[in-house]
């Protein structure tokens, strides 16, 4: 099968692998990403204008990433759409007509295009989840991902006395990036207790050998933190940030397994920046717009919130919608090696590649091992249910509309406002510019809402579009590559293993 047009949305580890495999299978590929350069958040690149002579100095696995990225972007059948956003997916009248039309805003100034792919691979990733606490809306409080993006992506460090807090292994690379860039990291504050961390990380250690790349990566971060004598404080959480117009000090406290605060354990630390992350929220607006079925997070919702959902896929990375595939963190947060494997499977199958290809077996194994590793980490770093104990009545829950905790509780208790949409209008939580991307899962959890699923992720317009842009007719896709000769299918590269070694 050649000449199929595969549109891949997202050029992080999953999307890049999908594009690579689809090209190998003989497809024509359009790869779309909102950034200037490929890599996503994991391989966040320096701007081209920095003309870095050694960009690999800041990256894990840079060489294999760079190789793949050059192969894909330089491929004659690949169109690379940088600084482009998919603002809507338009379902066809009949599912038999294939995947939805892809509405794109491309470049600066933005031009509007509509793509009509034979297959669509969604690999849009996730963003940090941050649980609210008093003062979390002060300037100087960043998501862990923001600190990472600024340090790795443009060499700006957020402060000189920094605490990195929240839960999960991602806090470690963030702290390492800050150290590398010359910040003083006062501590990494991990809410999970030592027992939970040990249970998740150390139980059945043979499982780790399959993920040596990943665990090796974690070990290197841990070693680096050790060298800089950065304390890793487990079983503690940042429960308040204070300051006049910007963060000046934070309060940490010991927390129990359910993240309830141990009274009297509070400790004040002077900081000039705080970086927080409590796991990740998958970016589900496009899968939801495409009509893909969602599934609850693996392992049930013992610790998860009602909004803890991912895209449901089969072993071929197919979603419930014909011609629509999903890969990477939107199917479960399992790290870069698993994302690469999922992406390669999705791209290969989406392009009509041979299901009997031997590499698929290796890729499938790598994906399953990645998922097992992710399940362990999730076990080690669950979000404790008692975290709302940190909140005060006047704590802002929705940063955009400044809806307070008291207002959310009042609305949850009001029987006339049980419908999420009614509650939204009444409290305004989720109606601001970010459209509930930040507060959506939190509000759903606080309301103990029963609208499990797409609710907080339903955004028909996935990206703000101006009326002027909408009024202009779409332009034909520029310079879409057409193969001069029929492409010869080769084989999907089963490189997740290779990539995790450098």
């Amino acid at each position, binding site marked *: 099968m050649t000449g199929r047009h595969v549109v891949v949305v997202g050029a992080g580890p999953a999307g890049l692998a999908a594009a690579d495999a689809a090209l190998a299978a003989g497809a024509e590929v359009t790869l779309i990403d909102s950034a200037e350069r490929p890599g996503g958040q994991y391989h966040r690149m320096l701007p081209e204008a920095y003309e870095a002579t050694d960009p690999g100095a800041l990256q894990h696995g840079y060489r294999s990433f760079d190789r793949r990225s050059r192969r894909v972007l330089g491929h004659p059948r690949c169109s690379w759409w940088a600084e482009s956003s998919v603002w809507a997916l338009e379902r066809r009248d009949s599912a038999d007509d294939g995947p939805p039309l892809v509405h794109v805003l491309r470049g600066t100034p933005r031009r509007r295009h509509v793509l009509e792919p034979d297959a669509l691979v969604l690999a849009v990733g996730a963003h940090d989840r941050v649980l609210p606490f008093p003062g979390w809306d002060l300037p100087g409080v960043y998501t862990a991902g923001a600190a990472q993006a*600024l340090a790795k992506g443009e060499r*700006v460090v957020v402060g000189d006395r920094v605490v990195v807090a929240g839960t999960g292994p991602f806090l470690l690379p963030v702290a390492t990036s800050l150290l590398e860039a010359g910040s003083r990291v006062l501590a990494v504050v991990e809410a999970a207790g030592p027992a939970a961390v040990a249970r998740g990380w150390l139980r059945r250690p043979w499982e780790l050998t399959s993920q040596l790349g990943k665990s090796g990566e974690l070990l290197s971060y841990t070693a680096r933190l050790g060298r800089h004598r950065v304390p890793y404080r487990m079983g503690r959480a940042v429960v308040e940030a204070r300051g006049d117009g910007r963060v000046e000090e934070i309060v940490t406290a010991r927390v129990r397994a359910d993240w309830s605060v141990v009274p009297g354990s509070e400790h004040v630390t002077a900081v000039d920046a705080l970086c927080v992350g409590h796991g990740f929220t998958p970016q589900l607006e496009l899968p939801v717009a495409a009509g893909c079925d969602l599934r609850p997070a693996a392992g049930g919702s013992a610790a998860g919130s009602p909004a803890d959902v991912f895209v449901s896929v089969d072993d071929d990375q197919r979603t419930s919608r014909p011609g629509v595939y999903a890969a990477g963190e939107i199917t479960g947060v399992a790290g870069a090696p698993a994302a690469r494997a999922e992406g390669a499977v999705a791209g290969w199958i989406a392009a009509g590649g041979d299901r009997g290809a031997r590499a698929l077996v290796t890729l499938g194994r790598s994906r399953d091992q990645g998922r097992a590793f992710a399940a362990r980490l999730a076990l080690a770093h669950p979000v404790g249910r008692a975290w709302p104990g940190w909140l005060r009545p006047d704590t802002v829950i929705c*940063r955009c509309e400044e809806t307070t905790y008291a207002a959310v509780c009042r609305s949850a208790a009001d029987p006339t406002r049980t419908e999420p949409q009614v509650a939204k209008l009444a409290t305004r939580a989720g109606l601001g510019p970010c459209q509930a991307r930040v507060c959506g899962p939190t509000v759903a959890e606080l309301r103990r809402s029963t609208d499990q699923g797409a609710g907080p992720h339903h955004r028909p317009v996935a990206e703000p579009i101006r009326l002027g842009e909408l009024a202009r007719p779409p332009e034909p896709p520029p310079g879409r590559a057409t193969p001069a000769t029929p492409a010869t299918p080769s084989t999907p590269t089963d490189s997740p293993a290779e990539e995790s070694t450098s």
Partner: protein
Amino acid sequence: MSPRLVPAASDPAGRRERPLTITVDGEPLTGIAGQTVAGVLLAAGRPAWRRAPSGAPRGVFCGIGVCFDCLVTVNDERDVRACRRRARDGDAVTTQSRAQGDERDGRRAR
């Protein structure tokens, strides 16, 4: 101390610096080609530039275009995410506010 740029001389990535100038509410700020508008503002020592409805200050929060805290106007284009827009030499950036009564209150302009 405030956010700052890693000095190019000590940067293991071995990068070049080509300075650029933007104005923010008329005041000139120097940045480096390739930086985002948010990066220029932060490295210039400004952790906040927008106002929430209550007047509370906002700057960068998510850094990857999700939270919309960092919105600015760039050359008359409203609601640009400063963390995602590369600064270009000569860009005229105006800050925004959603506070009632603030002359920059975008809701009346829209």
